[in-house]
């Protein structure tokens, strides 16, 4: 009965903690793990009347099909490039913004600023694409007029393969940095003021304070958000790209999800989309797992 005694000990010590977890765990098991049975569609020729457990098994056929498509290498490269840039700049921008905003003394300015930068989050990509087409127009768009004014040649942001990925990253950062800034600001406020006071006594200036107190204070959150966004590295932003891309920029703008989408228009099937999704999830898991492991071993920091 060696099983019962340790269980009883654990229960006595942490029983309440376990109970606190269980309601959420139940819901997640039911609605998320239960739904994972659907991942079987990736490996079978799903027939609705047969269900997930009785449809014919086709093994790796869906993967073979996608890998054999001529555009697959290109879309994988595009996906990785675009999402890596998005992760990097999607990290730097809100951090810098939060730090800069932290220096502002006027509360009113901070409040108004915080509200305004949250606006773009509410615009859908359908609307934003219309706006971007206007302001980025090489003939009469605002941005190119500015460039011309500075003596440069017009840039066809949405139509030039040399600039399309940049445009994707910039507009995506623009859309979401506001909400991330909120997170970092909240983290900033939880840095103890006494640390600042003590450093002032030691004669530190603002810059040194930022470097040695502020930044380290939010490093855990930075690592957390970055790790979680690593999980998105194969999602380059389907909604955005679908609205902004065109045959002119398939070369650099076509990503895994847009490819799968076009396949789905010609073929009513379940397997390919599920297979690709499953593959993406596995990659995310590996990346997050590695980050978690590294952070733990190297810095004794558990990300979550």
């Amino acid at each position, binding site marked *: 009965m060696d099983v019962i005694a340790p269980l*009883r000990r654990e*229960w*006595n010590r942490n*029983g309440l903690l376990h*109970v606190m977890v*269980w309601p959420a765990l*139940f819901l997640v*098991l*039911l609605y998320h*793990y*239960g739904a994972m*049975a659907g991942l079987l569609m990736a490996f079978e020729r*799903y*027939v*609705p*009347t*047969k*269900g*997930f*457990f*009785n449809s014919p098994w086709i093994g790796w056929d869906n993967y073979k*099909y996608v890998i054999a*498509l*001529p*555009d697959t290498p290109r879309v994988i490269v595009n996906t990785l490039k675009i999402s890596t840039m998005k992760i990097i700049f999607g990290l730097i921008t809100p951090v810098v913004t939060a730090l800069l905003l932290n220096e502002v003394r006027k509360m009113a300015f901070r409040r108004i600023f915080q509200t305004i930068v949250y606006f773009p989050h509410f615009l859908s990509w359908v609307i934003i694409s*219309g706006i971007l*087409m206007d302001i980025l*127009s*090489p*003939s*009469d768009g605002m941005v190119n007029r500015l460039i011309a004014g500075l003596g440069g040649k017009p840039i*066809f942001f*949405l*139509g030039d393969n040399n600039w399309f990925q940049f445009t994707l990253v910039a507009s995506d950062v623009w859309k979401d940095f506001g909400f991330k800034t909120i997170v970092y600001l909240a983290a900033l406020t939880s840095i103890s003021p006494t640390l600042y006071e003590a450093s002032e006594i030691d004669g530190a200036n603002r810059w040194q304070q930022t470097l040695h107190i502020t930044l380290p204070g939010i490093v855990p959150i930075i690592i957390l958000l970055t790790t979680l966004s690593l999980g998105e590295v194969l999602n380059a932003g389907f909604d955005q790209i679908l609205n*902004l891309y*065109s*045959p*002119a*920029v*398939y*070369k650099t703008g*076509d990503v895994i999800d847009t490819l799968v989408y*076009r*396949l789905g*228009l*010609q*073929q*009513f*099937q*379940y397997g390919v989309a599920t297979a690709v999704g499953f593959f993406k999830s596995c990659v995310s898991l590996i990346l997050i797992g590695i980050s978690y492991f590294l952070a733990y071993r190297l810095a004794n920091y558990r990300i979550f």
Partner: protein
Amino acid sequence: MNKLRYPALAIGLAMLLTLFNACSKNEASPPASTAAATGSQTAQASASQAANPTGKYDPSIEFTTVRVYDPKQYFDPGDDIDSNAVYDYYDTALGIKLKNLWAVTSDYDSKLKVAIASDTLPDFFKASPVVLQQLVTDDMVASLPWDEYASDDLKKWVSYDGGIQMQSATFNGKLMAVPETRGPYGDLGIVYIRKDWLREMNLSEPQTMDDLNNIAKAFAQRSSANGKVFGYFLDKSLDLKSFFNSYHLYPKIWVKDEAGNVTYGSLDPRMKVALQELQDLFKAGAIDPEFGVKDKNKELELVNSDRVGIVYGRYTDANGFKNAVKDDKLVQDWGAYLLPSVDDKPALSQVNSSVKNYFAVSKKSKHPEAIIKLANLWIDSQLHPEKHPIMNWGKTEKADAENHIFYTINPLVIFGQADHINMGTYLPNADKLKDPSLIPSDKKGQIKQYHNVQDYENGIVNFTNWLAWLQASEHGTMSMIKTAYDNNLYKFDAFFGAPTATMGQKMATLQAKEDEMMTKIILGAASVDEYDSFIAEWKKLGGDQITAEVNEWAATHQDPLAGRTAK
């Protein structure tokens, strides 16, 4: 503390049980018993109905469906899509109680996909060709007893095209859905040109394709306060079929040659000639350099701000000219013309005789024949509207002052294959002879259109009147459709079935390549000779395989040109 152990176990068990329950429910009940039940009930039902195809069900049966409808659909006061006078009428006339399992105004495809995948289909529903194909393969739709139940009127209605559209719904000799028949002739390619610009610039109306191209280049020389002016309209969907048709080229459809072989129209080496012309036009500034990234609505902004002078489209596309009439004055005088040609042979408009939707019946339905009865009633209401006024005009049973549309409330609506020909006959005639009685009296919408045309001709200018005039006047676009039909100015797609196996797998990739290549050539980023490498790549990447499958299909399917006689 111990007491908590049992509840914990209980919760755990409950979770596991729920999970198993959820998983096992996915297995369908043994198909055999369902089929048997359906079979016997169908046998009973058809035994009692066989003698009377239009006969009423007594007692009424429930027939479920799902709907996609316009959010601005008008209903009689107190009615909505789930409960209305039109639905009630089906019960009165046929003993069929219509019930919507759900009704949406957008994203119908997503919701249908979920319903299909979770095996929760209604009795009947609208499905696209790709979806129908899959459902037939997965044995989820019922075959329909057409011969026994379709009325003579219905059979005639669907046969004007020689039975093409019905064929597309036939798999292994069995009819698996009612096609949403439509008139392909309405897809006539028309070129709209700014007549006021032609007058201003002393240019004559185009007789040949060279003329049109020159007009485009001339338009590009215009100056405008709103910005640079262009000749041809073009957006990122690259819809240039009418341009190519003038060169007797038929991209993206399948073409049969004299020997009887079917090939993909885009592979015609003469495409390079037309592509070169497009490249030259682009270089001359006759095409918007940003066309590659703009969708139709965005590009239409140029049209609406007087910066594009030539637009290809079908007869309804004039609706996009939203700024033609401003403050009750015509400020953009658009002329509509048949497609000019590069030589003395007339240009043919490429059209497809396929349908966009099908009405299918779920395999589990107890009364598959009911859908044919719905179709019979619908046809009857179109041929003899006075017999079934509610279906066309709602509770009031007559057209109201605003001429609200009720027919869209009907769950199964199919259109006449010859509709456009008919409209193209009596509407222009009515205007020519100024005699509205030439229009069938039940076609209230068209009678109104006639009056709009008269108003316009009498000087009452607004967008609706102008549009009506452009379409329904003596020389309007509808009369052009009739002319085109009489002179056989149509080129029908030789392939009109559901996608073949390799098509489903590879066509998306091939089309992406085609669009990329065309965009690059027009932009001048690639020389026209690179089109040859596209053709080679197309064949290699699955195109040959697809061509073989299409030819195999064509061997057993009727030539779409065969049934092409008037009436």
